[in-house]
């Protein structure tokens, strides 16, 4: 068994809402798992089980209340993502850890082509090669050519989501977190997007993903984590 890239131990998240008089809302409790390069961990569970919150805790958008997330980076240094300082997290997000959610922050005046290509250029890849690769992927996800030079701010939801997916994938992160990435896509483009995801997985990216389509989830996952509103535990696919 390949050494674990990421090892989560007893992760818990409870929100303390001061503006609601100090109400505590438990999102999830005591979640543990291990994942290696090229492996896909699927997360399933009913709505309200804390799946999105869990992904956000891994990405540090939410601050975990307890537990640790040991991540070993490309330089073989291990960090606890739950407790690491902000600069470390920012660095890892830029270089190694990607996240696809259903919301894509759009910058009004930058074209779809540039928005995506820049993700590579800012990592040091030459501009022409980045643009080339971007065009390839835009074709694959059926984004009409006429839209390439336009800003995604004018795109439909489905189109924006495809840009979102390409943007995250093109950077070849070591670890990719996916929160319902294909739910706003029609079945044909969803299928193509899943192919891209599989290709990335083959190249060694570790993935943790939430999909409401259980069949899809099962076909992608090497392992599945079931979360429920009360308790979460790891089970096989």
């Amino acid at each position: 068994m390949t050494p674990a890239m990421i090892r989560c131990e007893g992760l818990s998240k409870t929100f303390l809402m001061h503006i609601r008089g100090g109400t505590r809302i438990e999102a999830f409790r005591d979640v543990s798992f291990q994942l290696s390069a090229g492996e896909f961990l699927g997360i399933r569970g009913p709505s309200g089980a804390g799946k999105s919150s869990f992904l956000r805790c891994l990405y540090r958008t939410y601050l975990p209340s307890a537990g640790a997330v040991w991540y070993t980076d490309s330089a073989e240094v291990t960090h606890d993502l739950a407790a690491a300082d902000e600069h470390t997290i920012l660095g890892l997000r830029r270089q190694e850890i990607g996240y696809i959610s259903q919301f894509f922050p759009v910058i009004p005046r930058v074209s779809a082509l540039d928005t995506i290509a820049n993700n590579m250029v800012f990592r040091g890849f030459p501009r022409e090669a980045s643009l080339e690769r971007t065009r390839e992927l835009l074709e694959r996800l059926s984004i009409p050519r006429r839209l390439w030079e336009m800003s995604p701010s004018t795109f439909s939801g489905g189109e924006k989501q495809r840009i979102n997916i390409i943007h995250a994938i093109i950077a070849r992160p070591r670890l990719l977190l996916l929160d319902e990435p294909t739910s706003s896509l029609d079945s044909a483009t969803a299928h193509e997007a899943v192919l891209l995801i599989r290709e990335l997985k083959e190249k060694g990216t570790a993935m943790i993903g939430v999909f409401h389509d259980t069949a899809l989830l099962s076909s992608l996952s090497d392992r599945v984590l079931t979360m429920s509103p009360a308790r979460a535990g790891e089970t096989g696919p």
Partner: protein
Amino acid sequence: MGEHADASLAERIGTGAGVLLSVLDLEKRYGPGCEACLELTGPQRSTNICPRCRSVIALRGVSFDLREGEILGIVGESGSGKSTLVQCIYFDQDVSHGEIRVNGQNGGCDVTGLPRSEKRRLRSRLMGMVYQNPMQGLRLDITSGANVAEKLLEADVFHFARIRERATGLLARTEIPAAFVDRLPRTLSGGMQQRIQIAKALANNPPLVLLDEVTSGLDVSVQARVLDLVRELQRELGMSMIVVSHDMGVIRLLADRTVVMKDGGIVEQGLTDQILEDPQHPYTQLLVHSTL
């Protein structure tokens, strides 16, 4: 232009980036002060005015680091001290207590005690500032080009052709039409005045740019253009930024990390997305959930 773009990207944006600016326990008091001032004011007391001596404690115990290439957001309501903070960093105001350390200056020693002329020199080399009100940042009685030239002249650039070239180049980069380079800013729109300020702030390629409510008071569409420009320039030139705003949208767009201020003190600091989506401090929660 764009000397920083040559630096290796990994160095620029990776965890290895050095600390550019350190602010330690900064305090700014207006008024005589008394022993009770700090105790009777601050975020817990919901006031920055001492009830006993009527001094205003505009800043209290403010500490943070800023790394090279990082964008730090400072958010808070009026009276939070956020504008005072950048004015102190920019040497527009003197601090009452605490230290400001700038990397590479005097071996990283405190610069708050330097003589005024030294501060002036330091600031013209290291910092650019964009004020909320263009009247503060621009001289409205000299041309746009001259405004940018002033910064270069402050930094002892005395070659006319070079000054002219850099000024026109920067104004072009901030999308000021060539015809307006020799016009007075007074005759131009608010959005254009802000963009001239940005050009001026970048004149000496400073490693740190301070933006104080740069888009407040501008129309929404104009705001978008200015913010875009700021973002592009930061990506291109790689300088550190401190962005002060009461507008969460601006902070979300620009800042990597954010500091939340209330009544002169910092109540919370962290990753911008974490501050906006999982705020911990009661005040931050109030602020975030009040945003439409």
